[in-house]
């Protein structure tokens, strides 16, 4: 049994590193992107192996899904560039990288047996019942370290704003007429797929307070549904100039910030939820964040530039 597990781990790590290397150094871009998607899947398996279900869910939605769509979109515009493989002093470079790796490894290996005093995980486990949710990771994300999560939602929003800046200045927009019409099969398939995605997203959100899952995973799955519907031409164009769209993209950070300010003004302090309302507040914030994450990611992956420009 032990040996078989070792074989499994070795195979996973070997696959991961080979794919990572090949992603960067294979000749053709389409191969690189396919490898990157495969890399995301292997990483999801590794998260499962390391007993991190929240991450596995997130990686399955993001790494294996949305990132490759993003990459493909960018690559379809890029001219195919073949990679020059440098031949001179390759061994020197290898030697250098190996040396750095050995140096890092020697230091970091010492950490694998330490447990870091494990006071913090114990604190989290101890306080989770008082946090308003039962799943410790959700408790950390939305209560103990909610400030990080609020700032993280702003990071996501800023990516969208950056995209908007680019779109506004682009004088050569991607002509929508040039897109080939989607096949009827694709339309039918996305019509049946989208409800399933929505249900799964809702399920992940609902479960987040007790079990692995939560706003980000749910938002990513919902974003996939929006992307699919948008690409198969079944969703009306969402335009930034509509206030509903802006509201959807902003509701997560806005609500979160309002709760923070409200709790500082009326209650105990910044992001200190009142005891009896913490569950309700967390659920509200999570739902709003899910909507924002879904809309923002969908914009970033499938949005046309003219949608957002004005």
């Amino acid at each position: 049994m032990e040996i078989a597990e070792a074989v499994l781990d070795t195979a996973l790590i070997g696959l991961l590193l080979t794919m990572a290397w090949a992603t960067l150094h294979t000749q053709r871009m389409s191969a690189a992107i396919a490898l990157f998607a495969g890399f995301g899947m292997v990483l999801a398996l590794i998260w499962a192996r390391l007993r991190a279900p929240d991450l596995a869910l997130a990686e399955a939605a993001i790494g294996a899904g949305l990132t490759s769509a993003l990459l493909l979109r960018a690559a379809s515009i890029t001219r195919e560039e073949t990679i020059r493989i440098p031949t001179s002093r390759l061994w020197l470079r290898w030697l250098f990288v190996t040396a750095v790796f050995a140096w890092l490894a020697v230091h970091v290996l010492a950490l694998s047996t330490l447990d870091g005093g494990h006071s913090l995980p114990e604190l989290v486990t101890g306080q989770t019942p008082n946090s308003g949710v039962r799943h410790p990771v959700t408790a950390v994300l939305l209560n103990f370290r909610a400030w990080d999560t609020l700032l993280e939602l702003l990071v996501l929003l800023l990516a969208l704003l950056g995209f908007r800046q680019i779109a506004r200045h682009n004088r050569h927009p991607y002509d929508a007429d040039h897109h080939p019409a989607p096949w009827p099969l694709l339309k039918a398939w996305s019509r049946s797929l989208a409800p399933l995605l929505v249900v799964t997203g809702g399920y992940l959100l609902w479960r987040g307070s007790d079990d692995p899952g939560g706003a980000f995973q749910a938002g990513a799955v919902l974003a996939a549904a929006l992307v699919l519907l948008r690409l198969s031409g079944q969703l009306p164009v969402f335009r930034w100039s509509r206030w509903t769209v802006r509201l959807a993209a902003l509701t997560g950070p806005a609500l979160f910030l309002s709760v923070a300010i409200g709790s500082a003004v009326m209650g105990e302090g910044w992001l200190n939820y009142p005891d009896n309302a913490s569950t309700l507040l967390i659920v509200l914030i999570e739902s709003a964040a899910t909507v924002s994450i879904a809309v923002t990611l969908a914009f970033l992956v499938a949005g046309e530039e003219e949608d957002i420009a004005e």
Partner: protein
Amino acid sequence: MTIVTAYLLAGLALFLIGLHGLLTLQSMLRRIMAVNLMGSGVFLVLTALAARLPETDPVLHALVVTGLVVSISATALALRLHGALERHREDG
């Protein structure tokens, strides 16, 4: 060689593969991928550290979820910027 050790080393190796790619590759698209790989390497280190305890460390998992959001946001912006740049260059 425990699981933790193996994946810690794998995370470091991934980080270095990405860093090496970032420093040596010419194509911007590949460099964006390389930064992503670096990120995955760091996340792998964090998750391997979380698996040291019998009950995995929820703090580290939460940090990685936050890190994943940050990383996808920045990647998306970089790819959009790259796409716009390429089209701009093509059209002269």
